């Protein structure tokens, strides 16, 4: 009995050590390959980590589903947002000719672009679905400029890991990883269904991130910052934060 116990004790010890070092190595590798979401801490950390790592390992370059023209929603649903301020009204009255998109942070050439500057890039369009975490959805045609083409023009530094982007609305911002930022369908959207992007849908400029839930598609886009640090780009459970406690990764 005691012999068996000792053998069992030793094999259990070895198995535990092997298991723990396995977990440690996996965590190190996950860190190295950017598989850990910035909000992977706290009681919901394990679930968040599993989802993000699985998606990033299995789904790197896949394209969001695109739909035929006949499936474009006749009456798309314009979600609500806080009243637009005086700054926005002033820009709107001038036909958004003074609207600027500032791109800075970890780029070789920080830039400020007007809407017509953006339109000088190759025009891209996609018929994709807006998917809200609440459960509703609609399909629209989205016309704009690829974020990755603009970022390439600015020269993203190699240590860049995240893109943080801000609305003109106070306290409205989001962030995505470089894989999502450089994805061909991540679109600086200035047109919708063959017209300018209406204000009710985030015009004059909205970032469309079609592989993630709607809350990542920030309206009235004014600033894009490239960073290498996950610190401060997500503040889950802070009711004043941009994401109201929603998970940082919204591909699920």
């Amino acid at each position: 009995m005691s012999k068996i116990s000792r053998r069992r004790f030793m094999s259990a010890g070895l198995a535990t050590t092997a298991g723990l070092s396995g977990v440690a190595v996996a965590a190190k590798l996950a860190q190295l390959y950017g598989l850990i979401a910035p909000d992977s801490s706290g009681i919901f950390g394990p679930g968040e980590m599993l989802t993000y790592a699985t998606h990033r390992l299995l789904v790197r370059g896949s394209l969001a589903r695109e739909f035929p023209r006949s499936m474009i929603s006749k009456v798309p649903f314009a979600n609500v947002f806080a009243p637009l301020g005086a700054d926005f009204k002033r820009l709107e009255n001038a036909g958004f000719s003074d609207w600027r998109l500032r791109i800075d942070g970890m780029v070789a050439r920080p830039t400020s672009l007007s809407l017509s500057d953006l339109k000088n890039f190759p025009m891209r369009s996609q018929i994709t679905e807006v998917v809200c975490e609440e459960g509703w959805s609609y399909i629209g045609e989205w016309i704009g400029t690829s974020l990755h083409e603009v970022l390439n023009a600015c020269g993203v530094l190699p240590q860049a890991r995240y893109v943080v982007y801000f609305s003109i609305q106070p306290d409205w911002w989001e962030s995505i990883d470089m894989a999502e930022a450089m994805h061909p369908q991540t679109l600086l959207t200035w047109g919708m269904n063959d017209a300018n992007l209406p204000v009710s849908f985030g015009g004059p400029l909205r970032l469309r991130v079609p592989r993630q839930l709607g809350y990542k598609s920030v309206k009235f886009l004014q600033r894009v910052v490239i960073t290498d640090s996950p610190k401060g780009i997500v503040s889950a459970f802070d009711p004043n934060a941009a994401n109201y406690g929603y998970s940082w990764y919204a591909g699920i």
Partner: protein
Amino acid sequence: MPNIVSRSASLRNRKGRHAALVRVTHWITVFCFVALLVSGIEILISHPRFYWGEVGNSVSSAVFKIPIPSSRRTVPTGYGYVLSDQNGWNRYLHFEAAWALVLTGVIYVVFGLWTRHFGKNLFPDKADRTWAAFWRVIAHHLRMAPPDETEKHTYNALQRITYLAVIFVWFPLVIWTGLAMSPTLNAAVPWVVNALGGRQSARTLHFFVSVVLVLFLMVHVVMVVLTGFAVRMREMITGTTAVPKEQA
């Protein structure tokens, strides 16, 4: 009256009622299921309307609505007030519990195949695979008769079919319809959502499959209570069947 479980089935599994792995995975599943149910209801409250096909929203017509207030003022519910929005942490909880449930389910199914648990304990015995045998069990239930002596050690055919359906039909379906709502997975494997008829169909099916699982849970708990709550709980916690004092 013949026993409602065939003799060969009742003779097996005499020693312990439930294997340790079955008991552990059972309770983890209970814990995860409750978490998924509560968080699922909370998520549902943000848009208690259902659609069919690819798209659906507050300005399109719903297939059906659940007559409850919503946590969003954009949803036309007919109520004059809006509930508090708790979707943030409930979504975290929903997906974490889903991961725990799926991983537990994988361990259980691998264990079940490895030890032939499904064949031995859940797949109905040859003698029980007849309409007459099923009818016998159903009639037994309809008479509200107490459980047969043989059922102390094993499951009757109706229970077996129900458990197999929950394990191999309803849980896989709820996982499939849930995964079909992930926009990134839609990009990677579009057939997962397309085969269901679109995103909103997947959401509606996810709701109905969840309802089936909740109905199963309710019947399951009622049966446990009716057939002896303490005994059934002891079996699923300690693994041993309670032996009446006079027989001990």
